[in-house]
Structure formats: structure tokens, C-alpha cells
């Protein structure tokens, strides 16, 4: 019997005033009854518009149907065909602009909570299925993967399932890329990422941490060592700054540094050796998911006032809607149409404040969004002792500079064709290294494409 309610079953969450003081997961997940009730909202409509909006084309009606009949493991198996990281995607995909944006239930109410159902299925599997997947029969081809973020993990998983001998090289001491250094514990528990990595290992994937391809090893040496194809999923690269006065003062961080100290190095825990400053009033500059993550981490570190400073308006915020709502609930203050022009110093070279301009929106710019313009004479001081720049990244030049014939565009992003092939034979790439900073699911889509193309290339 279909559930004709126009509203999505709400996601149970930790109380905002409790969770903004801890790093435990915010969203608690559907229970079984809620999951079935939500699944019943899916009409299994003829054209499956949701699937066409999923970057990896998960069989969404198919897995929801299995939930309806309480076959959760069956649902997991359906998702697994297309997605190697369901527990991750259920949590961090921007569903409102992907699958759920096309759901016909969304015309007259809320779309089906596809992301929440995916998470339910993945969590059910992780809690109930303890048997490691069987190691596929080896086919005797070696493939190297550069980077263990969402693109690399997906590519590695797909190739391992086909029987390839896959080795991942990771520069940091922990695998997972942005899933471990960037996305905070309260949004994506690290145990979930570790579980996905353990699954890859049981599929026979070898993981080398602490190897920087481009320094410890070059792409050419990988081929000399017997690898027949390489997939580059090295991620986004160098953090951008605004080039305004005061940006090198103590207390100004890139979001990457701030989040890495907290998420990868666990600076919020007493037991960790990595330090982080005591902060009281924090401005996070930017409006993406990274900005939301940084602001919510700052709040959890005990900052009394945390601002999101964004030069456009609420409508243009690129962050996932749920993250913005959660941030607002947790007491983050949004300063829209505001742009910093300088960071001012205390006597000891720490941040004393941030001078901002008010902005107004003009005609649409190249991105299609209305261009923010400074309002003359509108300067004001924002009283802060910490500034976090969450402005995006520029590609890391390391692989280009150490790999002959690897071409990049004028922004420095790796150039690939429609198969994910770079300008070098046998070298494929995907994720932020190609697109610039984007989403986890897009990187996964690129990892899948890379695996498919490498399989075709090595099957010839």
C-alpha cells in the first residue's frame, strides 16, 4: 500500500544545543519502521527520473522495492552494483540537486528520502553482515591508483571486483582522502570510511600509505614497475586565499588546514598531539560544504560566535541544503552579501578583526549567478579572532611537473577525454584533480568511468 503522505519522514538528529558541543554524528538514521514507511512513498513510477540524476545511476526504485519487502541485504546488493560507497553517499551526496530533485513525489510535496533510505540500507548491511566479500579470481593485470579518496577508492573497488591486481598509493598516513581529512566525524564517522577500505582490502586491493606519487615514485616508474594502467585521483590541491592584507596573520587558516587538524589529526581530542588554537569569535569565508564543515567544527571547539561570511545571498549558497539547516540550528550566524577586504592585527600579530564590505547583486556573471558588487562606503569591522578561508582550491602542480606529456588546462586541472583518459597512454584520471573542487559522488562517478575504461583498455 503506497504511503501518500506529502512529507518526508524526518531524520532523527541529535539536539542542536547538545550536538554543537560534541563530534558525534548529527543525523541518527531511520529505524526499520520509518525506513519501510518512507520506502512506501516511492510509487515506482515508470521512467525512474531519479536514476537519471544519479551520477552513478544507482537502481533507486529497485533497492527501495527491496526495503518495502524488508529484504535489506537484497537492497544493499542492488546499490552495490553501481556504488562502492553506499554508507558514504547516503550521508554526503547532495540529494536535493540529484536523485531527489527528479522524484515525482517532489512535485506536490517532499520527494522520497532516497539518501536517507540508502543510508539505512548501508548501515543495516554494516551492522548485520560480517562476512568479508570473497576475493575475485585474479586475471593477472596490475593497475596503480594514485590517491585513496572517493575517486580512487571507487576505481580500485570496481577493478578489484573484475580480478585486477590493484595497488593504491596514498600520500597521507591514513587512507580515505577528503573523506577523512575534510569531512568531519559528525557528518561522516571515520569508522564507516575504514569499513569501506577494509572491504577493498578483502577484495585483494593493496594499500600503500605515506607514498607521494610525483615525489617518492613517478608515474613513469609505476609503468617500469609493471603496472599496466594508472588512475589518478589525487584530489583538489592547494587552498586558495583572497590576497587581502593580513591573510598571513596567526589565526588565519585555510579550511583545509583547519579541517585537517581536526579531522585527520584529531586536534579536538585530548590524546592527540596536534595543536589547534583556542578560538572565540570565528569568521568562515565562503558558502560551500567545506565552509559549513569548518564553521560547525569551530562551534564544537568552543567558539562562542561563528559567522559564515558569504558575498552572495542565501539563494546562491553552494552548500548542501541539510548542512546549511544544521549549521543554522547549531547557532552559526550567516552574514550574506558580505565580503572581507582586510584582516586586521592585534599587537602580537594575531587576528584582531576583519574589515568587510556590504555587497549587492548585479547582473548574472559567467557562472549564471548574479554578480556581487561592493556597496561603496559600507565598510564595517567584524569582531573576530580567527578567520578561516573556505574559497576552494587550485590543482596541485606536482604530477604535471613530474610526468612528461601529462597535459593540464589553463587552471591546472588534468585534461581527460570522455573515457577519463589523460594525454598519456594508459593514464586515466578523475575527481577533483580533473574537475576542480566538486562533490564526493561526482568523484565516485569518475572513478567508475576510469575503472570501466581501464578494463576496456587492458582487455584489448
Amino acid at each position: 500500500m503506497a504511503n501518500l503522505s506529502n512529507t518526508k519522514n524526518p531524520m532523527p538528529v541529535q539536539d542542536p544545543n547538545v550536538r554543537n558541543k560534541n563530534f558525534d554524528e548529527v543525523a541518527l538514521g531511520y529505524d526499520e519502521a520509518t525506513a519501510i514507511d518512507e520506502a512506501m512513498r516511492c510509487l515506482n513510477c515508470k521512467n525512474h527520473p531519479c536514476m537519471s540524476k544519479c551520477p552513478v545511476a544507482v537502481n533507486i526504485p529497485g533497492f527501495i522495492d527491496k526495503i518495502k519487502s524488508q529484504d535489506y541485504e537484497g537492497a544493499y546488493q542492488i546499490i552495490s552494483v553501481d556504488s562502492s560507497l553506499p554508507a558514504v553517499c547516503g550521508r554526503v551526496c547532495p540529494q536535493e540537486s540529484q536523485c531527489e530533485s527528479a522524484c515525482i513525489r517532489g512535485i506536490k510535496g517532499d520527494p522520497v528520502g532516497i539518501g536517507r533510505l540508502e543510508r539505512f540500507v548501508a548501515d543495516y548491511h554494516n551492522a548485520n553482515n560480517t562476512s568479508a566479500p570473497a576475493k575475485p579470481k585474479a586475471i593477472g593485470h596490475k593497475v596503480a591508483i594514485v590517491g585513496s579518496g572517493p575517486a580512487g577508492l571507487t576505481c580500485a573497488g570496481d577493478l578489484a571486483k573484475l580480478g585486477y591486481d590493484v595497488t593504491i598509493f596514498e600520500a597521507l598516513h591514513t587512507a580515505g582522502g577528503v573523506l577523512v581529512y575534510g569531512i568531519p566525524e559528525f557528518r561522516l564517522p571515520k569508522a564507516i570510511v575504514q569499513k569501506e577500505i577494509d572491504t577493498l582490502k578483502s577484495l585483494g586491493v593493496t594499500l600503500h600509505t605515506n607514498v607521494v606519487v610525483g615525489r617518492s615514485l613517478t608515474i613513469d616508474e609505476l609503468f617500469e614497475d609493471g603496472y599496466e594502467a594508472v588512475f589518478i585521483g589525487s584530489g583538489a590541491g592547494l587552498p586558495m586565499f583572497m590576497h587581502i592584507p593580513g591573510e598571513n596573520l596567526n589565526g588565519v587558516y585555510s579550511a583545509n588546514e583547519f579541517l585537517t587538524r581536526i579531522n585527520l589529526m584529531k586536534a579536538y581530542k585530548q590524546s592527540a598531539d596536534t595543536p589547534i588554537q583556542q578560538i572565540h569569535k570565528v569568521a568562515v569565508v565562503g558558502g560551500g560544504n567545506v565552509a559549513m564543515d569548518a564553521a560547525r567544527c569551530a562551534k564544537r571547539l568552543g567558539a562562542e560566535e561563528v559567522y559564515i561570511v558569504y558575498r552572495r545571498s542565501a539563494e546562491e549558497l553552494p552548500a548542501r541544503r541539510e548542512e546549511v539547516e544544521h549549521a543554522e540550528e547549531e547557532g552559526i550566524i550567516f552574514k550574506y552579501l558580505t565580503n572581507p577586504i582586510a584582516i586586521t592585527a592585534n599587537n602580537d600579530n594575531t587576528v584582531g578583526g576583519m574589515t568587510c564590505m556590504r555587497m549587492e547583486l548585479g547582473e548574472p556573471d559567467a557562472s549564471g549567478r548574479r554578480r556581487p558588487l561592493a556597496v561603496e562606503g559600507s565598510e564595517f569591522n567584524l569582531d573576530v579572532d580567527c578567520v578561516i578561508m573556505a574559497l576552494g582550491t587550485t590543482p596541485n602542480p606536482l604530477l604535471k611537473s613530474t610526468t612528461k606529456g601529462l597535459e593540464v588546462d589553463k587552471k591546472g586541472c588534468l585534461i581527460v577525454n570522455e573515457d577519463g583518459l589523460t594525454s598519456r597512454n594508459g593514464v586515466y584520471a578523475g575527481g577533483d584533480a580533473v574537475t576542480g573542487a566538486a562533490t564526493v559522488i561526482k568523484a565516485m562517478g569518475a572513478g567508475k568511468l576510469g575503472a570501466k575504461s581501464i578494463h576496456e583498455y587492458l582487455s584489448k
Partner: protein
Amino acid sequence: MMYQIIKRRELNPTVTLIEVDAPFVARKAEPGQFIILRVDAEGERIPLTIADYNRSKGTVTVIFQIVGATTEKLNHIPEGGYIADFVGPLGNPSELEGLKKVAVVGGGVGCAIAYPIAKKLHELGAEVHLIVGFRNKDLIILEDEYKAASSKLYFMTDDGSYGEKGLVTVPLTRLLEEGETFDEVIAIGPPIMMKAVCDLTKGYGVKTIVSMNPIMIDGTGMCGGCRLSVGGETKFACVDGPDFDGHLVDFDEAMMRSRIYKPFERHAYEEACNLFKKEVQ
């Protein structure tokens, strides 16, 4: 994967040399590059410049001064013991090809980093004037190595207990005044010393390269914590350096940035020391 300390030597009461089994690093290491290590699973990532390497043995040598909790912990790992992580080589190698006559200036533990550069220049056939400075005689490290890696060697101590009394700029001033023409001066040591060398050489128009060692986390360009101002532009020491034209580096800013965690470090260091004292009792 753990990394074994296969040799450990205390060079002076606060400076220790360790040779680490790290074949991935050893096969590519060049003078001027650095590694990042983590002592244990809770440890912070700290950068240390490569002091030596042995490609056939697959080992890399680093020399560290005990300045905080992490180096204190590192100093307690015995020969044969293991550290959790050791990654590199990171940063760009020093550009030494084609140099004919160079003054290499080291200060304190920075001499340990100046040494492989002097050694490589010496091997390349350059005339190497090596000036090394220490606070006193007891703190001098690697004396024999300097002798083997230089054409002329100048020892300086703050108190005159060994070599000549004074700062490293004293013999460098003398050499420049006497009309010695160096292709380059390479200065490695505390920022205040590198700044003094740069202030001096600027007046003589001698190109001066410095090796910057700011606070870092990942060491691969991701975090931007190691940024510094060079010629008015923001550079990342890990991917753009660590070597820079010393006449363009904003040393005051670099020194200010390196002090950000001083109160925290002091506290962490004392805690680590107390922990080790308890273990001894």
C-alpha cells in the same frame, strides 16, 4: 607499515641522529628535501630536513633537536625501535648544479642540513667555504663530516669555546670584504640567523638561498599552513620550496608565524617530560 630506526646516535645533549629504514624515500631523496614523520598513532606530523641517505641500504638519516613533545617522544625510541609514519622526499631539491664557488652557512642544528648540501657541492667539484656556528663547544655536531665536505671550514661559537668567537656573519663579512666572489651563499639555520646573513649579502649583491622550515601538516600542498611571503607573493614552503631567494623572504612574518603554537608546545613538552620521568621512577 612501520619504519625502523636502524641507527641512533646522540650528537649532543639535545640533538640526535636517526637512520630510518624507508626505501621509498631513500631511492629519491636529494639534498634540500625533507620528510614528514609521525611518532605514533596519536602523533602530530612534523617536517625534518633530510641530512643523508643511502640508496642501496634504503635508509634516510634525519637529525633533530629536542624542542617539543614530539621530538622528546622521538628521542625516547631506541635503536631498533619503530616510528609510525615516515613520508617523503618532499619539497624541491636544492639547485646545486653549475655552482663553482659557494659559501654554505649553518647555524646550530641547521648545520645538519647544511652538511648534505656542502657534501653534494663538494662532490660536484665546487669550492665550498663552510661556516658553521654553535652556541658553545659542547653543542658542536658532525665535525668530521664538515671537514670532509668543505674546501675551507670556519667554526664559530658564541662564547669562543671553540673556533672563533662570534656569529656566522663575522667570517662571511670578512670573506666578502676581502673580495671573495661567491656564485651563491646558502644559509640554513634559525630564521634570525638566515635573516642576518641575507641582510649582509644583500649589501654585496650576492645571491643567497635559504631553507625555510615553517609549521606544516601534510607537506604536499594541501593545507597552506606553511605559507610565507616571498617577494610580496604568498608561497607554500612544501611545494614551492623549501629553498627560497633569501633576499625576498619576509623573515619577520615567518618568525611570527612559527610562534603560533608556542604556549601549547611548551605545555605539551612539559607533559611529555613528566610522563617519561614517571616511567623512569
